[in-house]
């Protein structure tokens, strides 16, 4: 019914948004390709929602340019942009039935009521809510309300679809399920979609690309894989999956690799343009293996805390580099606190980052 051809790109050029003194978004520039799902990820208060609302036209930029497709929309109000949004609170109109809610966009644009309602029925069927049209939003469960909100946003066949933390009001079980549904819908319709979340796992799961934000600016942009494997800095390393940050020293450069000394252990890692000298090393908790036997080229440490979590074990290990956080999926090899262990770093999941 809705072809991917309606999808459009979104482009920001040096966009600034200030609320009085507070700068919520500073010099933001990015391009979102047509038909892709891009996530804005970052801690609370970093400007994600503001960015989303700038795309929707619910906020007007203080300076800079915003383009949707080839058209400049910087000064266009929300009602004149071809963009739909699914709100964090769903924002279903409580005084209208589900069907009236879904048909709203069509009826305010002047479509006759019967026709609008017929299309809304189809849309409801598409999200699996056939037959719920006559209910009031308050008579639906959280997950159903969410689907109504999606159906309502989709009915205008928008060029861009926006989601603001769509899963935050759902319980943990439902989240994974709805996440999948959103992905499938997005792919089958080929819509350009911008998705805001502060949950890195959610972002990694749904995105084609992720824009990581920090303090009103972009910290890094890339595919989930790129961000996880090659974080640009400590902030990204720590935010996307946890990371132990320790200090090392680049001894020498050798082609694309650097010879690094990490607490006495020597490793060869991609140097990513960093000069010799002191450097920060981000080590993923999964990239550390503990062994009760002595191993060459490893650190020695003492387990200070061990937590059993069913699918995996979490350890805190006291080492000369400081305390390290470790995730171990071999649940049967439980090492109680006080155990002396060798700490081995895996080949992947250890990254040099600029010390900040």
């Amino acid at each position: 019914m809705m072809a991917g051809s309606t999808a459009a790109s979104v482009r920001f050029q040096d966009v600034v948004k200030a609320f009085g003194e507070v700068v919520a978004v500073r010099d933001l520039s990015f391009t979102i390709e047509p038909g892709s799902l891009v996530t804005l990820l970052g801690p609370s208060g970093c400007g994600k929602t503001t960015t989303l609302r700038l795309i929707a036209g619910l906020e007007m930029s203080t300076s800079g340019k915003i383009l949707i497709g080839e058209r400049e929309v910087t000064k266009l109000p929300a009602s004149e942009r071809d963009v739909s949004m699914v709100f964090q609170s769903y924002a279903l109109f409580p005084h209208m039935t589900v069907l009236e809610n879904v048909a709203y966009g069509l009826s305010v644009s002047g479509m006759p009521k019967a026709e609008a309602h017929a299309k809304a029925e189809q849309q409801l069927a598409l999200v699996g809510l056939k037959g719920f049209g006559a209910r009031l939003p308050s008579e639906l469960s959280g997950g159903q309300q969410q689907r109504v909100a999606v159906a309502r946003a989709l009915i205008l066949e928008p060029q861009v679809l926006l989601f603001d933390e769509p899963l935050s009001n759902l319980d943990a079980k439902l989240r994974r399920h709805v996440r999948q549904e959103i992905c499938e819908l997005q792919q089958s319709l080929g819509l350009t979609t911008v998705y805001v979340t502060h949950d890195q796992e959610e972002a990694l799961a749904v995105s084609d690309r992720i824009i990581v934000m920090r303090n009103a600016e972009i910290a890094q942009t890339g595919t989930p894989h790129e961000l996880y494997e090659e974080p640009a800095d400590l902030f990204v390393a720590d935010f996307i999956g946890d990371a132990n940050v320790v200090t090392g020293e680049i001894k020498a450069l050798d082609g694309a690799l650097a010879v690094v000394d990490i607490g006495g252990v020597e490793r060869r890692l991609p140097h990513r343009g960093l000069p010799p000298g002191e450097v920060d090393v981000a080590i993923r908790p999964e990239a550390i293996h503990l062994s009760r036997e002595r191993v060459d080229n490893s650190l020695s440490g003492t387990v200070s805390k061990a937590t059993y979590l069913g699918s995996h074990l979490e350890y805190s290990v006291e080492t000369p580099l400081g305390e390290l956080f470790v995730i171990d999926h071999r649940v049967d090899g439980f090492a109680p606190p006080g155990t002396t262990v060798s700490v081995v770093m895996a080949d992947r999941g250890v990254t040099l980052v600029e010390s900040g």
Partner: protein
Amino acid sequence: MRRSVVLWLAVGWVGLAVLPWYAIEDGFWNFAWLDGYPVDGDFAPALLQGLGHGRWWLLPVCLALAAPVGILGRRKTDPWFAAVLLMAGGFGLAYTLAQGFAIGIRGWEFEALESTFGELGDRQFGMGYGAVLVFGAFLFFLTEGIAARGAIKGDVFVVGSIGLVIALVAAFIFFPITRILISAVQDNDENFAPALFFTKLFSGDIWGLECLTANLSCGVAWNSLFMAILVGAGTTAMGLAFALIATRTGFRAKKLLRVLTVLPIITPPFVIGLAVILLFGRSGAVSTFLEWAFAIEPSRWIYGLPGIWLAQMLAFTPIAFLVLIGVVEGISPAMEEAAITLRADTWRTFVTVSLPLMRPGLANAFLLGFIESLADFGNPMVLGGDYDVLSIEIFFAIVGAQHDQSRAAVLAIVLLAFTLSAFYAQRRWLGRKSYATISGKGDSGLHMHLPRRLKILSYGTALPWAALTAVIYCTIMFGGFVESWGRDHGFTLRHYLEAFSVTTGAHGLVWSGAAWNSFWTTLEIAAISAPLTAGVGLLTAYILVRQRFVGKDAFEFGTMLSFAIPGTVIGIGYILAFNVPPIEITGTGVILVICFVFRNMPVGVRAGIAAMSQIDQSLDEASLTLGARSFTTLRKVVLPLLRPAIVAALVFSFVRAMTAISAVIFLVSANYDMATSYILGRVENSDFGLAIAYSSVLILVMLCAIVLIQVAVGQRRLGRRGAQQFGLEGSTG
């Protein structure tokens, strides 16, 4: 091409070239002018006035109205579009206003102009339909231009609404107040006389302190202030007693307490004063009884401070109760329970925990009582005796033998300074808290019961008071059926017949009763002004809650200001401002409607703000992203959810239009007499029977109207979520 520009162009040109420019003498709805139209010099539209009647100064208006035609073909983003609209609107407004103020019924209004341009040899009257339309067109050109520049997300409707509210508030609140200030520094022949101003401002009859040293009365300012403090303290104490009983005792008849709080709201304020006279006056029921039983000589002790105080206490205690019950209920029981588990007994808990937590509420209640007392006109009017207060002095300075406008203006400034200071203090200390709603978190736990001595004290004051209120209302209800109060207590329908008799004449029914005229006028004016008040109030609330713009604080101050302006001050301001061109509307029904709309607007604003803060903004935004413009959003999403606030605003403005007296008394005319001023006239002639009969009819009519409005506007439909109830609060007077 922008449809709104075309629309306002059309409206402007109709106003300029078709409708009469000047106001029609015989009233807004009178169409006798069609007779001499369009050539007659009084009725001609502005275009003909300018070309054919030598009123050349109207021609530049046409020029400003022609300019926007040039940009009809342009796009909104074109810089010329905004520039031309800004210039046409700005110049048009400024010029139309300037010529209106510069040329009046005596030609040039300012000598400087006369000496520059020579004698005009012509004059003009107040503006009429045509001018109103042209003003509207210029105003909306200006706002559309501002919106095109990108203000408020380029939203034409919102910018237009803000412009409209600002223009109305400027014209009908700030302009009259400014006129008072100007009048105060002029002598009665409109010459600038600052020395006279200071003499009047500091004169002995305002600030004198003779009552402290000799057996003389003090200045009116002290009288008013003293009374206001007594009433503020009294109503707060009484309101607290009622609130404690309602929330922290096992008192059975709590519903009845609620009823007692609604009654005074639908009672014209001076009716309580009237009932007080009927009970405690020289021939009042209580006085007669005391004479008969204890041979106590009846006297006029009730006239003056005791009477006014008693009447105001009865009238304003419910307001204090409404404020305090919210506060007392809002104190989390967990706090009290915490204190008790820490071994404090109930008395210490109350004194050290509950009472301090109520402090903001107490201050709020006190200030409201204080302001109400200062502003009250009706009770001092019927019960004042020799005890002069500001509101009454202002009235007699204007209508009395002195006819001293500038003295009235000076007194008005003093009164205004008092109420504004109190209002400022209230907003400063507690202001915004009053809007905050109690959080949805279920605080489990029960309020502790009152300590014994406090319980005794509360019951001891509140129950007799409730009984007195009940007696007062019985007096009001039955007083109209008594032949002659105090002398002959026989049953009669005479008063009702005199007021409301209907006979059948040759042409059907004849409304021959004396009260019908003012009764229908009152209903008509109240019915017209209620929806207007609700409309302006809710629109303002929408702007305040939902929009961000520069100068919003000033905007809010302006729209809430009239809440702190006593009716007497508004009344004199309206007389001074609207007796002469360019807005010449005294003696019409229009001025009454306008007066009610802008006096009661804050109530609509508050009801709207309270309701709108509970509607999540994302609902509006969802509607906007679905392609609905802000006007459609307001109509389809916000308004339907605002039903309870609409009811509250409609009921309140209707009721206040029917009960108001203080501003009205300046503005009524032979054609437009209002019920309250008619009744007050009867009271002054000691025709108590008819007055009280008419009052009880008014109370009944208001009760019916409230029910009717509830039914007409209906309930919100929200499924499981129940509709919230909004408390009515506000002031009378």
